[in-house]
């Protein structure tokens, strides 16, 4: 009997919780007592708790391996039970390859970000509060991925939403030029947008419970499958519906939930604003982990999606729900990729890029390429966390440079002042504006190298991690859904282009601001996690290498083992749809197992081309000063004299494209989604309803009733109180009368 550590699963939650308690209760005292050692205690305690959770995840991983990858449910206790309604939800951990993969990513990347944040948050007045929130986030995220039922998943889902809200608004007292609390507003926006998705989640859970009588994954899936095989209908009291249409509703509601949490059309609007939070938060929550929970939800529910696909049920006869998932993902990938062109804030480029990459994953999951979706999720966690942390390092360096000038001008050194992403000075210097950067490759060598690796990985350059995972999605698309394939390929070109633009603007050329000229490299506590992540971004592709030729694939069939398709071999034990395909119950679109030179060649050529275009053509030696407009925005004269091709490009393609991008950014993104859809429809409806509830329903209706009842009760109370005379004889009389009444009643009963 091999040893296993499944019993340790609850520790996953215990460690972060200890961290929350430590930093929430006493962390501040340490810091008040001694700023420097206090910060070390607070930060390292939280980091060690995160690392401990990572260790537990590793132990679970090893246990699963020695357990032949069989899923294990660790039952802790029955959480909610209403026996009469047959309602039972346990607090139990689902330990299978899928959840352990998520745990490893969450705790592994999370630990690195914790350590990085020790350096990044140095000097912040609310240092320990920050780490308490980070640990709390880990706690909820681990509930989300480890639960064996939808309700636990939902508890985590709401919990990470709460932490996201708290951390976006971490510097809630910051105001912009107009005096508006922008960070607090951004936090609120994220919260409201997520509520829409959460509402769909609640409906989906209610529907699931109603149809299958359980919220636990295993019983729901097996019950759904039984009903699918027997062709049974789902009965809702008086009427009944086919399983396909019920599951279409459930999966569509899941999709809406995922669009909220994973920032997809139409609910993506909150994620760019969420960059108001500290950069480690952007890396951890808004790039690597929380925003991927929508993908986890879809991959976890793969059986339901595949049944819908197999049953042929569609939404109003137009599109089936898995296809809708794929289209939404692909459209988001492209739209966000285009919008990223027009951004000047270093973190906003990454934010739109994240939206775009999440679109890739959602599209993959929608096409049935669950392994590819998870693969991209993992590699994306590596390189996007790397990029965000790298951008944090850049911002940190820029601020140092800015302090340097500032101190210089005032003739004194400034030490130990709090830093933040938007540290406001009188001159309105924005350390996140890429136009003020330039030439940082000399000042910040380490950051430059790792950032380069991250950017190339994201752009999909061989042999970095992003290449392999993106290629797998594209290869799947090229076989099963051409529209999605084309959209995603264009999105991949966009990715390479905006990353090239960013690299150029941040690290190359000459410094365009005094701050950039004096920028300083970040401390080791920040750069070491960057190096680890960079290593992962280089090697991550090895997790799921495709077979390089048909021949190797055939050899592999005879001699299993080796380096190929590791992730697929690992995940197929918990993505149930794989087994269903073998049994012939559903038809899971198969991801090509053999490397396809065509798809990879096209995407590589396009990616390199886009990088070269950005680097040597469009931004060749632009911009020179911080005030100079982006070359994409105006047509520079010198272009005309170089090449007719460039003239053509600049006269027609650039302005046209530019207008499209600008139109998408200004009209579709801001005017329509942000202002109209979000502000008018969602927010105003919400506010209107709140107004109605508060002023009409509550004040007039409920309060009126309550006040009426209250005054009635008061009158009654005063009347009864008259009997409370204070005389013992009256009290005795009351007892006596009570006895008489009781006796009379019993004697009456006897007769």
């Amino acid at each position, binding site marked *: 009997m091999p040893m296993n550590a499944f019993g340790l699963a609850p520790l996953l939650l215990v460690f972060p919780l200890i961290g929350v308690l430590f930093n929430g209760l006493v962390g501040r005292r340490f810091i008040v007592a001694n700023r420097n050692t206090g910060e070390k205690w607070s930060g390292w305690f939280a980091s060690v708790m995160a690392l401990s959770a990572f260790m537990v995840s590793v132990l679970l991983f090893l246990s699963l391996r020695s357990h032949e990858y069989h899923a294990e449910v660790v039952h802790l206790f029955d*959480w909610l039970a209403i026996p009469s309604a047959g309602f039972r939800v346990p607090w139990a951990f689902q330990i299978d390859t899928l959840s352990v993969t998520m745990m490893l990513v969450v705790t592994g990347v999370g630990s690195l970000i914790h350590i990085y944040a020790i350096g990044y948050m140095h000097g912040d007045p609310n240092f320990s509060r920050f780490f308490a929130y980070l640990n709390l986030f880990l706690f909820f995220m681990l509930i989300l991925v480890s639960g064996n039922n939808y309700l636990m998943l939902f508890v985590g889902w709401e919990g990470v939403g709460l932490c996201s809200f708290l951390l976006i608004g971490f510097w809630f007292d910051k105001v912009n030029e107009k005096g508006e609390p922008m960070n607090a507003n951004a936090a609120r926006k994220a919260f409201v947008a997520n509520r829409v998705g959460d509402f769909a989640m609640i409906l989906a859970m209610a529907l699931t419970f109603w149809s299958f009588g359980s919220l636990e994954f295993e019983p729901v899936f097996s019950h759904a499958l039984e009903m699918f095989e027997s062709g049974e209908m789902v009965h809702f009291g008086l009427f009944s519906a086919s399983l396909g249409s019920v599951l279409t509703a459930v999966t569509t509601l899941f999709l809406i939930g995922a669009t909220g949490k994973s920032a997809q059309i139409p609910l993506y609007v909150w994620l760019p604003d969420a960059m108001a939070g500290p950069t480690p938060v952007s890396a951890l929550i808004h790039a690597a982990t929380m925003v991927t929970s929508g993908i986890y939800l879809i991959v976890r529910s793969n059986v339901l999606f595949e049944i819908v696909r197999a049953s042929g049920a569609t939404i109003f006869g137009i599109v089936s729900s898995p296809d809708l998932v794929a289209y939404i993902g692909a459209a988001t990938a492209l739209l966000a990729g285009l919008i990223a062109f027009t951004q000047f804030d270093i973190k906003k480029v990454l934010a739109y890029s994240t939206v775009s990459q999440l679109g890739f994953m959602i599209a993959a999951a929608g096409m049935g390429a669950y392994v590819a979706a998870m693969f991209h999720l993992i590699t994306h966690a590596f390189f996007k966390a790397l990029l965000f942390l790298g951008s944090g390092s850049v911002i940190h360096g820029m601020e140092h440079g800015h302090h340097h000038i500032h101190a210089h001008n005032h003739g004194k050194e400034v030490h130990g002042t709090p830093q933040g992403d938007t540290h406001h000075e009188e001159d309105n210097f924005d350390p996140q504006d890429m136009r003020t950067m330039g030439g940082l490759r000399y000042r910040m060598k380490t950051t430059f190298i790792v950032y380069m690796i991250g950017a190339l990985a994201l752009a999909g350059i061989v042999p970095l991690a992003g290449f392999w995972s993106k290629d797998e999605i594209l290869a799947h698309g090229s076989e099963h859904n051409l529209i999605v394939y084309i959209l995603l390929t264009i999105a991949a070109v966009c990715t390479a282009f905006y990353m090239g633009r960013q690299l150029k603007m941040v690290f190359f050329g000459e410094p365009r601001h005094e701050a950039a000229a004096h920028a300083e490299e970040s401390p080791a506590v920040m750069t070491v996690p960057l190096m680890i992540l960079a290593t992962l971004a280089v090697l991550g592709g090895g997790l799921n290498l495709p077979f390089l030729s048909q021949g190797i694939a055939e050899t592999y069939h005879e001699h299993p083992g080796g380096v190929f398709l590791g992730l697929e071999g690992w995940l197929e034990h918990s993505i149930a749809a794989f087994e269903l395909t073998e049994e012939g119950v559903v038809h899971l679109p198969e991801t090509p197992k053999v490397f396809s030179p065509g798809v990879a060649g096209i995407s590589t050529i396009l990616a390199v081309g886009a990088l070269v275009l950005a680097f040597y053509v469009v931004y060749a030696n632009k911009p020179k000063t911080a005030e100079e407009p982006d070359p994409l925005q105006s047509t520079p004269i010198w272009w005309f004299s170089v090449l007719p091709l460039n003239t053509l490009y600049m006269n027609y393609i650039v302005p046209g494209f530019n207008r499209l991008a600008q139109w998408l950014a200004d009209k579709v993104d801001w005017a329509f989604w942000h202002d109209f859809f979000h502000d008018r429809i969602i927010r105003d409806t919400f506010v209107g309803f709140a107004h109605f509830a508060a002023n009409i329903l509550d004040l007039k209706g409920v309060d009126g009733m309550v006040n009426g009842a209250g005054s009635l009760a008061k009158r009654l109370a005063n009347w009864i109180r008259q009997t409370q005379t204070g005389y*013992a004889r009256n*009290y005795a009389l009351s*007892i006596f009368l*009570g006895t008489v009444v009781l006796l009379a009643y019993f004697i009456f009963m006897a007769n």
Partner: protein
Amino acid sequence: MEFQVPSLNLLIVLPVLIVTGWGMLLMLAEFFIPEEKKSWAPWLTMLGLVLALIQTIGLWGYNGGTFTPKGGAPMVVVDNFATFLNIIFLLTGILTVLISIHYLRRTGLDRPEYYMLLLFSVSGMMLMGMANDLILVFLALELLSIPLYILSGFAWPRPDSEESAMKYFLLGAFSSSIFVFGIALTYGSTGTTSLPLVLERISDAGMLGLVATAMLIVGFAFKVAAAPFHMWTPDVYEGAPTTVTAFMSVGAKVGGFAAMLRVFVAALPQLGEAWVPAVAGVATLTLIVGNVVAIVQPNIKRMLAYSSIAHAGYIMIAVAASVNSPDGVSAALFYMLAYLFTNLGAFAVVIALEHKQGEGVMLDDYKGLGKRRPWLALAMAYFMLSLTGVPPTGGFSGKFYVFRAAIEADLLWLAIVGVITSVISGYYYLRVVYLMYMYDGEGEVVANRALVWTVGLTALATLVLGLLPGPWFDMARDAALQTVQMVAGG
């Protein structure tokens, strides 16, 4: 007539013996402890209670009896029902000691008798849950009550304290006499006072049995402060030292219900058709009177007095449901566990605000507490929410189980009364929260370490019972099943 020495198994009544013996030892030790070391008394008391608690927890799962006369049933039984209740009583005692230490010192009431009386009263309560014979029920009732009469008047020479002791004693004696009359009539109609034998014979007892039942209800209803036998409660609660009020509001009430559940569910279920509507009627009246009159109380001790009357009503619902629902008894037990923590926690906050004897007990003194002592105010707000029955609190879980038992027992209307009166109760509980957070005020707050610990622990316990009621309710269910089995076994 032959005299028979009853068979004894003193080991299983050891917890009671420890508590009683400890009280006597303390009384003796009193002579030998020098004046300056008198401050040891509370901690010694606590030690005794903790020892008894450990012993009691060790008895969980034990099922047996002792003091068995020849050919009869044991007079004292130890089963999970009794053990569960004994845990409640001992926790009540421990928490009362914790909140008393500093309070007694600052109000000048620090006399060692206080703790001895407390111990004797606790031992009476414990016997209430273990008594399997009406005579023993009566003895336990008196053992529980007499120390309380003295404790109510402990703040002499303050007139309202003496008045409260006098009233409590007079009315207590009056209701005890009715109770004894009930026992006598039971003996008259069945020829026994042993509960298992009463069970066998009561169906043939006819009219006399019913009259006896009525009188037993009166005795218990007085003890648990159910309307219309409740009128002593506000006066006594207000006049007694606040720590005594806290102790009474939980201990005496749970003690009353302990014996009431045992007698009515274990011995008189066959008369259920007659007494269930009566108990339900008393519950309804209690709920209305308690919750409605509490609204107009300006004094928090009086308000909590009416609140405790109201809670007696909710437990009464469970008693009424216990004949026809398997979960009635366990709902009552769980409710009392939650009530123990919530109510003692709330009283601990009241004590923190009562900086001088009788001062700082008006509702207006709670104004601005949210700013002055945010944690204390948060705890108080949480206790108020629990008393109202808002999730996630122990109070909510308790009400949930009670109402569910009522619905199972076909007493839907009673559950509806319970829900409506719960809504009314929000009016006065939430006013405390409102006063704490919406106004400014300057009142003195005396919170020493033991008190803060009590508030924290009770709040935590209330939270645990609110978030994870399942395991504790399962325990209560084990405790309740045991009773029914004892009945079946005879």
